[in-house]
C-alpha cells in the first residue's frame, strides 16, 4: 500500500514537472504555430541563471591552502559570509529562490530577443525550417554555455530548510511515506504557474485577443489590433515559464549544458500526447506520463514486462496518438 501511494506521489511529482517543462512549448505552438526546438535550450538557460546567481553570491575570498604546493588550491569563503555572517549565509542558502526572481526579467529579455531577432521571420516557413533553425540556435546556445561553464554538472542546493524530506504519510496515518520537500514544492509551483498562464489567457483582455489571434490572425489584425506585438509577448512568457522550470529543477538535477537536449524529446512527447497547442492537454499528458512512468519502474512491473520502464513514455505516445489523432485534448 505504502509502495503504491509513494509511486502515485512520485507520478504526480514527475507529472507536474513534465507539464511545466512542456508548457512553454505548447503555448508557442498554439499561439505562434512555431515548432521551437530551442525550447530545451531555454529550460537550460533558466537553470544556468541559477548557476550564475549562485556563482555571483558565492564570490569568495581565497585563502591559499599551503599544504598544496604544486598548484594553487584555495579554501574559499564567500564574501557575503565574511561581511554579514549568518545573514550572508542565509542569502547564499536561498540562491535558488532568488534566482527565480532574477530569471524572470532575464528570460523575458531572452525570449523577446529570440522572437524579434529570429522566430518572427519563420512564422510562414515550413515546420521543417523552423525545426532546423531553432535546432541550430539550440546548439549554438548550448555550446556557448559549455564554453563558459564546462561540460560537467554544477550542483545547486535547495535552501537548507527544504533540502530534506518530509514525513507526509504521518499526516494521513500512513507510515513510511517520506517525500522530499523540494519535489512537493515543484508540484505546487508548476500547478500555480500553469494556472496562472491559463487564467492569463482566459480571463484577461490580452489573453482573449491572443486566443482570438490564434483562431484567426488576419481578422484580428483587421480590427486594428497589433497582434504581432502580443505574440511577441507570448513568446517572452513562454521563455520565462521554461526558464523558471529550469531554475526550479536545479536542486533535483545538477544542471549541465546538455540538459536542454535531454528534455527536448520528452517535452515534445508531452505536448503531442496532450494535443499540440492545448494547455490542458499538456497538463493531462504530463500527469498521465508521469504516473505511468513511475509505476512501470516498479520492480514488480518490470518483472512481468522487462524493459517496460525504458519505453513506457514512447509506448503511451504511440497508443494515444493511434486512438486519438490529435492527442488527448487537441482540436483539429
Amino acid at each position: 500500500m505504502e509502495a503504491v501511494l509513494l509511486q502515485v506521489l512520485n507520478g504526480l511529482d514527475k507529472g507536474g514537472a513534465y507539464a511545466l517543462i512542456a508548457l512553454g512549448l505548447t503555448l508557442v505552438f498554439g499561439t505562434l504555430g512555431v515548432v521551437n526546438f530551442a525550447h530545451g535550450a531555454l529550460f537550460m538557460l533558466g537553470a544556468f541563471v541559477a548557476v550564475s546567481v549562485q556563482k555571483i553570491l558565492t564570490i569568495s575570498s581565497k585563502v591559499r591552502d599551503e599544504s598544496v604546493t604544486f598548484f594553487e588550491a584555495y579554501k574559499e569563503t564567500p564574501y557575503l559570509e565574511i561581511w554579514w555572517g549568518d545573514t550572508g549565509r542565509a542569502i547564499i542558502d536561498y540562491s535558488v529562490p532568488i534566482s527565480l526572481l532574477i530569471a524572470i526579467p532575464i528570460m523575458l529579455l531572452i525570449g523577446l530577443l529570440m522572437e524579434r531577432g529570429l522566430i518572427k521571420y519563420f512564422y510562414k516557413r515550413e515546420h521543417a525550417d523552423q525545426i532546423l533553425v531553432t535546432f541550430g540556435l539550440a546548439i549554438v546556445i548550448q555550446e556557448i554555455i559549455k564554453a563558459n561553464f564546462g561540460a560537467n554538472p554544477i550542483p545547486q542546493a535547495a535552501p537548507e530548510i527544504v533540502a530534506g524530506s518530509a514525513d507526509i504519510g504521518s499526516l494521513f496515518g500512513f507510515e513510511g511515506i517520506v517525500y522530499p520537500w523540494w519535489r512537493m514544492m515543484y508540484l505546487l509551483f508548476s500547478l500555480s504557474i500553469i494556472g496562472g498562464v491559463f487564467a492569463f489567457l482566459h480571463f484577461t483582455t490580452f489573453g482573449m485577443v491572443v486566443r482570438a489571434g490564434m483562431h484567426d490572425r488576419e481578422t484580428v489584425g483587421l480590427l486594428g489590433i497589433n497582434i504581432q506585438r502580443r505574440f511577441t509577448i507570448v513568446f517572452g512568457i513562454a521563455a520565462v515559464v521554461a526558464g523558471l522550470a529550469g531554475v526550479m529543477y536545479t536542486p533535483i538535477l545538477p544542471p549541465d549544458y546538455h540538459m536542454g537536449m535531454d528534455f527536448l524529446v520528452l517535452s515534445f512527447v508531452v505536448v503531442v500526447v496532450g494535443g499540440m497547442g492545448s494547455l490542458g492537454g499538456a497538463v493531462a499528458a504530463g500527469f498521465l506520463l508521469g504516473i505511468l512512468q513511475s509505476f512501470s519502474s516498479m520492480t514488480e512491473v518490470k518483472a512481468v514486462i522487462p524493459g517496460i520502464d525504458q519505453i513506457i513514455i514512447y509506448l503511451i505516445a504511440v497508443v494515444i496518438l493511434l486512438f486519438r489523432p490529435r492527442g488527448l485534448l487537441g482540436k483539429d
Partner: protein
Amino acid sequence: MSNDKKFTELSRRGFIKSSIAAASAAAVPTVFVSNANAYVNAPKGKTVTLGFNVPQTGAYADEGADELRAYKLAVKHLNGEGDGGLMNTMKPMALKGNGILGKKVTYATGDTQTKSDAARASAKRMIEKDGAVMITGGSSSGVAIAVQSLCQEAGVIFMAGLTHSNDTTGKDKRRHGFRHFFNTDMSGSALGPVLESEFGKERTAYHLTADYTWGWSQEGSIKDTTEKLGWKTKAAVRTPLGAGDFSQYITPVLNSGADVLVLNHYGKDMVNSLTQAVQFGLRDKNVNGNDFQIVVPLFSRLMAQGAGKNIQGIYGTTNWNWSLKDAGSQAFVKSFGAEYGFPPSQAAHTCYVQTLLYANACELAGTFDPCGVITALEGFKFDGMGNGATEYRAEDHQCFKDVLVVQGNDKPSSQFDLLKVVKEVPRKQVEYPASKLGGELGSCNNA
C-alpha cells in the same frame, strides 16, 4: 598534381590488395606501396604520430579535456621538454627524452563523442589519414572495447584510457589492447573489507544499476563481494542510461528494508541519482538499527564535483588521486599543476601513464612494430608511476596495482580536496586469475 596522379594509379593497383595497410599507405603521399611496410603506419622520417581519441563533446567532455591535457603533457615530456614528469620516477625506464626511438613525437586528436561509431570513425581517421601508430583514450567501456577491436583489426596498438568494465580485459580482450585502469572486479575486492569494517556483516543491499554492460559488470562484482561478507541483496534494479530523474527508482528503496544503497552509475547518472537519493532523506534513515548508507563503487573526482556536498562521507574506489604522497604521484601532480594550474584527474593520470608505458615499450622493443611492442609490454613490471609496484599481466593485458578506497571529504581544505583516501588496498588483495573473466587475446597482427 602529377604526383597525385601517380598516386591514384598506385592505389588503383592496390585495389585488389585489400589490407588497410595498403590503403592507408597509399593515402600518405610520401610512401610508395611497392615499398612494402613491415607493419601499419611504420614511422618514416623523423617523427612518430600517436592518436589521442577522447570525448570532446557530450557528457564526458570535461573528462576528455583533462585526458587531452595529460596526453599533451606526456608528449612534451617524451620529447624532452618540460620537467620530465614521471620520466624522473619511472623504474625501469628506457626512455631518453629524445622522443621515441629518436623520433619526435607528434599527435592527432579525435572526438569520440562517447559513441562507439564516432569513436571508431575518429580512430580510423587517425590511422588511415594521420598515420597514427598507436591509439589511446576513451571515457567509456563501450567505446574502449569498440576501438580496441578496431585497433586489433587495423594492426595498431590500443592503450585504453578510462574504462572500468571487466570486459575490456575480460571477454572482449584483444592482443593489441592494454589497460592500465582498474576494473569492477578489483573495485569489488578492494571495497569489500572496508565495507565490512565500516558497516558490519549484517547488511541488506539495494542496487540501482545503469542498464548496460558496465553497470551489470559492476553490479555483479559488488554483489559477489558483499554477499561473501554475509550481506543480503534485497534487489538489483536496472535504470535506463541517462534517466535524469531517478526518483521512481528511489521511492521503492525507502521501505524496502534495505540499509545500503549501491549506485552502479557513472558520470551524470551518478551525480543525479546520488543527489536525488540524498534528497529523499536516505542518509538520515535508520533501518534495522543501522544507519542507512550509500555506496558509489566507482568514483571520479571530476564528476563528484557535480554532486556537491552530497558525496561527503560516501565510500567508493578510484584508480588514483592527486593527494597521494608517493614520489611518482607527486612528480605527476607537480608537472601537471605547473602546466595547467590545477590537479590532474584519475583519467588524466591513467592516460599519461599509458602514453609513457607505450613509449617505453617501443624503446625496449627497439621498434614500433606492434608485435614487438606487445611482447615488451606483456608481463612488464614497473614502479614509480603513482600506483606502487605494477605489472601488465601477459595473460589479459590488465595492469595489476594497488587500488584506492576513498570517501567523500566532509572537510575539504580546498575546492579540489573532494576525496579522502581511506585505504590503499594492496595489489595482492585485488588480484584474480586471468581465466576468471574469460575471453581470448587472439594473435598479434602486423600484416
